[in-house]
Structures are given as C-alpha cells and as structure tokens.
C-alpha cells in the first residue's frame, strides 16, 4: 500500500452492533417454547443434605421440573480444566448429597417463566448435617501442600537459581516483607448465561464462554455425545476476564432438562450465585526477600507464596514466573504452596498471578529504593535484564527500560520530591507519586483460520478466538484490510463458533497473538490461490473472475514456536495446547511501566487516582484503538484491585459474603480520571511473523503496586495488604 492511500478506519469493527443493542450475547434469544432454569443453593459452609423437600416448589404454577440429583450416567465426570478436563472444577453439583461449599447448587427448577422458577427455587427446603469448614488460608482446618510435590509437572517446579538464601544473607542491604492479596471476583457485566436446545440428537448451545471448544467437548463428555453432535456459539461475550475460560456446571443440567422437556432452556445465573458458581482470584500471601548492594544492584530474590485452592482441585500458582524475570538477578528461589479451603475451585482472573506477584515484588523494590536513596525509576533501570535470568536465553523482545524512560518523561517524574508526604495540593490533599513495572508471559496456542473471498468484494474470516471486548475482530479485520486493501467494513470476522474452525480457549493474552499469524497465513494462501503476488491491494472481484470462481475458500494453521503439528490434534479435540513463555531459542514476555498519582484527601483520607501514565511493550500494536482501550481497562482493574475489591469470607458462615455489585465494589465512572497510554510498538518477529505479543493482562500488572508505592510516597507507610483501606492511611 502506498502513502497516498486514505487512512484505514481503525475504529472498533463491531462497535455499531454494540451501540445499537444488536449484538447478541449468551441469553439474548427467546426461542419458541423456551423454559427457564434456576438453581437453589446450599446455605451451609460444608456438610451433607439429609433430606430435601421439593413439594412446595413443585406446586408452583408453571413449574415443569424440580431436580435435586442427576444419575451418574446422566452427568459423567468432565474434569477440572487444569487437570486435563474441560470444566471450571471437577466437582459437578447435583450428583450426590455432599455440600462442599456454601453457594453450591443443590437443586434446579425449570419453569415456564422466570418468576415461577425463582419462586420455586426459594421454596426448596433442605435439611443439612453440617460439618466444620475452613474458608481462610490461615484457618485451622485448611490444608497446606507444597505445589511442586502435589502437582509434579515440570512447568510447576519451583524456580531455583544459584544459592538465593546464601546470597541474601551476604547482601549488605536486605528487605523482608509480607504482602497479602485478597480474594477477588472477576464479575464480568454479563453473568454466566446460556440457552440450549436439541435438534434431534444434536445439542445446540448459545453460551457466554471464552472456550467454546471446552463447552463442546465437555458437554459431549458429560452427556455421552459425539462431539460432532454438539454446536457451541459465543460470538459476543459480555466480559470474560478468565471467569468464562472453561465449561460451567449449569450447562449439563440444563441440557438434560431440555432433553427431558423437549423444549429450549435458558439459564442466566443470578449475580449473587455467580460468586459461588464461577471461579475467583484466590487469596495469596507473598513473602519477599530482596538482597542488594548499597548501590541497589540486586543480588538475590526469594519469593514464597501461599495460595488458596479448593479441597477438590489444585489450582496451580505461577507467581514466580514473572517475579524471577523482571530484573537481572543472579540468585532466585521461589516456593509455592497451595492451601486447600472449602470453596469452589479458584481460577484465572485477569493477570491472575502476575498482578498480586507484582504488588509484592514491586513494593519491595520501592522499599529498596527508599532504603538506598536511589530514585525508583533509576533503581529499576539499573537492574534491567539483558537476558532471561532463569534460562539464560535471550528475550524475544524487551523494551521495559524504554517504557520506564518514556513513562517518566510523560508523567513529569523529574519533579517528584522523594521525601514521603512532601507534596501537598492546594486543597490540603497529600500527593503521592508511585511507579511500578510489570510483565506477563508471552504464551501462544495453535490456531486455524479459514478465509472465504467472494466476488462481491467481501472476505469472511473464521478463526479460533473469542470476542470479549478485547477487540479481536478489529485486529483481524485490520490485518486483512491492510494486506489486501479491502475496506475494513468488507471483512467479516467469525469467532467463538465451533461450527467453523476449532475454538481454543482465548485467555492468557494469547488470543490476538495466536489468531493473527493464522489469519496472515490464510491471506498468504489466498494470494497464492489467486496468483496475486503484488504487495499492493488486490482487486478481489477481478482476481476471482480470472480464476473462474465466484467464491474461494482457503485455510491455514499456525503453531507456536517449537510446537509440532500433532499439537493441532489437541486443538481439534478440545484440549489446551499452550506454548511458552520459554521457547526453544528465546523467552517471551510483554512489559509495561505504570506511573500513578494518588491524592489522599485531608479529612476523609479517601484515596483518589487523578492520573495514570502507562507505557506498554506488547510487540507490534495490531489494533491501536482497541489496544489502548485494553490498557486503560487494565489500569481501571488495577485501581479496583488496589483500592476496592475484596471477596470477604467469615469463619462462621462459609462461602463468600459480599456477593452483589453493591457489596463487591468495582470502580465506577467517578473513580476514574486521566489515563494516558503509550506503546513502544516494536514488532516481536521472533514470536510470530506478525510481531504481536499479548496486551490485555500486562496492562493490569504493576498498577496496584504503583498505587501502593504512591500511597507510601504520600504517607510514608508501606502497604502490606490489598485492597488498601481508609484505616491504612489514617
């Protein structure tokens, strides 16, 4: 394309559908004869159900089914996704008399309408035999396991580099701190929602999922179906953030109910139930030891983590994957322990391990800067890593230093008075300026793209991936438009649809980085098929006409670096096929630096965040508009993590207590002010030919740490627990 061409429209390609209400999410359909399902849930912390009276529920007019238990051959095991299965946890409710945690479904009602279903669910009368339970990781009944022994997989072996303990002891400057991160819930705006129906022996599922493959193969496994007889579509997801990354456990029950009633069934989980039926970010406690020279050069890092899991599954923690890579350090020792508690299985919530880990490490680095009198930005630059400290391999790209330098200049960091509490606003608010870096692993998965060119000039791209707000449709459409010269609005992007190409889990910030190389490969195939080698734009109708084909379809697949073609079989059979961040010849991470101003109001001590500057290295920026929104969103999430969000538990009750959007406060509009985003925009051509790395999660990593460091700068008080409360700054 030449410079004289008009600029490509980079606005979000599916924005029109979204601003007009035409985009259809999981439950946005009302097929004929639709029935409505709802759960009744356990109100004890743990135990068993001795008796359950459903007569009142069954008497509600309009109720069609009340189910308290499915037969084992009706709902087979699906398995926890991190243990080779497809589901959010191994425990499938409604199969026995056990209550593993408060909030677990104990009965399901299906009725002609929602009010009848809701009323009937409230009339379910269980009797329980309660048992002792533990919901806190320091509770007596909690059970602590050493992760690398409990899950003996190579990628979970604790990272040990040199003799970190000896190096720490020998260091002239030593920092020791404990940093706790609260449990949190992702609460995507769209609750888990599905509509299922049968066409003969074929099960048709409209779901809100980041993993249509898992829903398809999970339901096939659970119901004993041929996967070819399960179709799953999830074209628009009302936010995922990891909470929708595997099969949810209402799907099997409503599919069975739909088959029994011979009617479509819809289930929208009530917001409070999503706090117990979906995964959550586990509570973690991090103990960090930094050893350094007087000039701030790191000699040793020791990072020990206790992370919450459930009784029935081990959700692996990967905190040290990032804490070992941020700086050049000759000695590192990690240790992960998993603490079993009586909750549903925790899981991935945006930057699941990385955001809490970075709060710990970057708080400790801020302490080191304060102790040595070195500027926090200079300290980070001085400890920049040239190669991966863990493997000795080069990074495929690392522009963290440039992120720090550019962010500091944009923010005006040189005007910072390093003395805590020294900067005061006109209204008496104390100003604090904080910085933190962040990184996120560059994982990758194989992908298949199918491209159909039509003589009317449209190109339809079906690719593995899910659209949950990150803008994957826009990134794909822009790539095709830039390459072929087709207007963006003539590129139709199909994602989240198992009837097209396999739909691997979209998570871990690999969605766009996996989809784009496959789409690029398919575009290259199309050019070959049409004999168009000219790099300029393609006259599609003419080229198709010349070939005598009104429609031409090509397909291509791509693998991650070092992956072999058999991995495509895993993709096609619904399994996880994740590569990286350590590849045969290099190591890939995305990098970011955040600069934050906080103001602590003089009387209320309320903490506000008037401005943030974030500079990211996510490789080439494939879609500038949506990428910038991703980073702003990550910053908002960091503000929520630092100042608002905590899922409370109580030893007396079990489960989580604050299960509404009123009591689990996420940032609202009035909490958010100026957020300035910049990108290094240097392609990472080792990772893939398109040069893109992930951005959705690295955008959040380090934000909470930067806020906590800004609060230190304002108050002189080190924050050891998130979220920060008013009482912490009184």
């Amino acid at each position, binding site marked *: 394309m030449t410079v004289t061409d008009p600029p490509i429209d980079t606005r979000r390609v599916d*924005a029109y559908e*979204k*601003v007009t*209400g035409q985009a259809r*999410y999981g439950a946005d359909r009302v097929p004929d004869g639709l029935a409505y399902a709802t759960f009744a849930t356990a109100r004890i912390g743990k135990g068993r159900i001795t008796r359950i009276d459903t007569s009142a529920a069954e008497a509600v007019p309009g109720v069609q089914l009340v189910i308290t238990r499915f037969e084992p051959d009706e709902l087979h095991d699906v398995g926890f996704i991190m243990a080779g299965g497809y589901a959010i946890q191994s425990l499938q409710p409604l199969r026995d008399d056990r209550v593993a945690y408060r909030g677990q479904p104990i009965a399901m009602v299906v009725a002609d*309408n929602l009010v009848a279903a809701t009323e009937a669910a409230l009339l379910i009368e269980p009797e329980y035999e309660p048992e002792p339970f533990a919901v806190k990781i320091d509770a007596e009944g909690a059970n602590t396991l050493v992760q690398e022994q409990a899950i003996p997989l190579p990628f979970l072996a604790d990272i040990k580099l040199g003799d970190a303990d000896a190096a720490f002891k020998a260091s002239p400057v030593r920092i020791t701190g404990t940093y706790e991160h609260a449990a949190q819930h992702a609460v995507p705006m769209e609750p888990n929602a599905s509509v299922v129906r049968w066409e003969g022996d074929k099960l048709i599922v409209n779901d809100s999922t980041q993993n249509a493959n898992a829903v398809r193969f999970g339901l096939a496994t659970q119901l004993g179906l041929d996967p070819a007889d399960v179709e799953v579509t999830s074209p628009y997801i*009302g936010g995922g953030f990891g909470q929708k990354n595997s099969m949810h456990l209402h799907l099997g029950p409503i599919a069975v109910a739909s088959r029994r009633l011979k009617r479509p069934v819809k289930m929208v989980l009530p*917001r409070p139930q999503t706090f117990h039926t979906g995964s959550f970010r586990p509570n973690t406690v991090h103990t960090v030891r930094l050893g350094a020279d007087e000039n701030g050069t790191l000699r040793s890092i020791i990072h020990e983590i206790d992370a919450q899991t459930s009784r029935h599954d081990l959700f692996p923690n990967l905190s040290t994957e990032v804490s070992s890579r941020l700086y050049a350090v000759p000695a590192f020792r990690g240790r992960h322990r998993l603490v079993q508690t009586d909750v549903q299985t925790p899981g991935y919530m945006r930057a699941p391990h990385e955001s809490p880990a970075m709060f710990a490490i970057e708080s400790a680095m801020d302490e080191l800067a304060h102790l040595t009198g070195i500027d926090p930005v200079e300290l980070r630059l001085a400890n920049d890593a040239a190669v991966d400290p863990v493997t000795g391999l080069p990074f495929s790209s690392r522009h963290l230093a440039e992120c720090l330098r550019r962010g500091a200049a944009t923010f005006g960091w040189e005007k910072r008075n390093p003395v805590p509490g020294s900067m005061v606003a006109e209204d008496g608010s104390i100003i604090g300026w904080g910085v933190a870096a962040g990184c996120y692993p560059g994982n990758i998965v194989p992908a298949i793209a199918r491209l159909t060119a039509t003589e009317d000039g449209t190109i339809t791209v079906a690719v593995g991936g899910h659209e949950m707000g990150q803008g994957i449709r826009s990134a794909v459409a822009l790539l095709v438009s830039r390459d072929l010269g087709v207007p963006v609005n003539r590129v139709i992007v199909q994602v989240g649809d198992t009837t097209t190409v396999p739909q691997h889990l979209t998570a871990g910030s690999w969605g766009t980085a996996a989809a784009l190389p496959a789409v690029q490969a398919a575009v290259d195939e199309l050019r070959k098929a049409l004999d168009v080698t000219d790099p300029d734009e393609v006259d599609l109708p003419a080229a198709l006409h010349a070939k005598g084909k009104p429609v031409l379809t090509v397909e291509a697949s791509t693998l991650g670096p070092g992956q072999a073609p058999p991995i495509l079989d895993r993709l096609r059979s619904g399994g996880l096929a994740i590569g990286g961040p350590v590849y045969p010849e290099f190591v890939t991470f995305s990098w970011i630096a955040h600069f934050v101003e906080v103001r602590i109001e003089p009387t209320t001590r309320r903490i506000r965040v008037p401005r943030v500057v974030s500079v990211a290295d996510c490789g080439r920026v494939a879609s500038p508009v949506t990428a910038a*929104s991703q980073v702003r969103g990550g910053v908002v999430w960091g503000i929520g993590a630092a100042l608002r969000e905590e899922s409370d538990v109580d030893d007396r009750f079990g489960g989580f207590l604050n299960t509404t959007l009123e009591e689990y406060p996420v940032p609202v509009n*009035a909490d958010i002010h100026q957020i300035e985003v910049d990108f290094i925009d240097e392609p990472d051509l080792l990772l893939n030919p398109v040069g893109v790395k992930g951005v959705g999660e690295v955008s959040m990593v380090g934000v909470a740490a930067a806020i906590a460091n800004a609060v230190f700068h304002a108050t002189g008080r080190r924050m050891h627990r998130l979220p920060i409360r008013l009482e912490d700054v009184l």
Partner: protein
Amino acid sequence: MSTKDSTVGLACTVNGQAVQLELDPRESLLDVLRERLALTGTKKGCDQGHCGACTVHVDGRRVVSCLTPAIQVTGQDVTTIEGVVGQDGGLHPLQQAFIDNDALQCGYCTPGQIMSGIACIAEGHTGTDDEIREYLSGNICRCGAYVGIVAAVRQTADGA
C-alpha cells in the same frame, strides 16, 4: 410470596409501539422487554439495581428496568436502545460518539450507558467532566471504558 396464578393487564408503548400484555405482577420491566418482547438490547447485569445495564427511559426519565415492576409503566412510554435514533433516522449522536471515542469494549453495559448518557445530557448534568462522571456512576463498565464514555458524553453535550 403468592403462588396464585393471577395476572394483570399492562398497556403501554415501547419504542412508539402499543403493547398490551397479561402479566404476573412480579415480572420486572426488564424481563418483559427481554423475554416477552424479545428486545434483548437491554441487558441484565445484576437484577438488583446496582449496575445500570438495564437502563431504559420511561416517559423520558432514566430508570433501571430490573427494579421497575412492568405493570408500573401502564400508560407510559418506554424507550429502549432499539428505539434510540438520530434526527436523520440513523445513529443517535451519542451512539456515534461512543463509536468515535471507543467508549466500549465488550459492549454489554453499552446500551445502558447510552440510555443513561442521553438522559444525563437532557438533565443538564454535563457542566464539567466530574459532573458527567458522577451522573454516570450508576452504570458500571467492568471493562473500564470510562475515559471514552466521558469523552463521548462530553462531545455529544457540546455538539447539542
């Protein structure tokens, strides 16, 4: 809670069209719009009045439809995102401003944000960006598109 099989009549207009329905008096306006009229542009985020995703206009005033019993709108005019149009019959300026400012990500809260934003402008609560932020704080965006949302409302208010 009653288990009687009793219904009541509802007569109102929705997006300018007359609607007559027999309802369970417990049905929310939100569920009637979505499940009976298949107007699924209005979203259910919490069903408790906390998130604003279900915001619609009743006689021009913004309400959370999940906390509005449907029978309460008898004789009133309901407008949903499907009924929002610009003067030329195309997009409303605020819808266009949402596109231009990328004031959305996943799009699930967007219909509610736009209904609230139109009302916020009509109410005159756009004097400063902070005022816009306060008067749009009943609409949660978990993706965190707030910077764009404020810009879109600002642009539309200034252009009006």
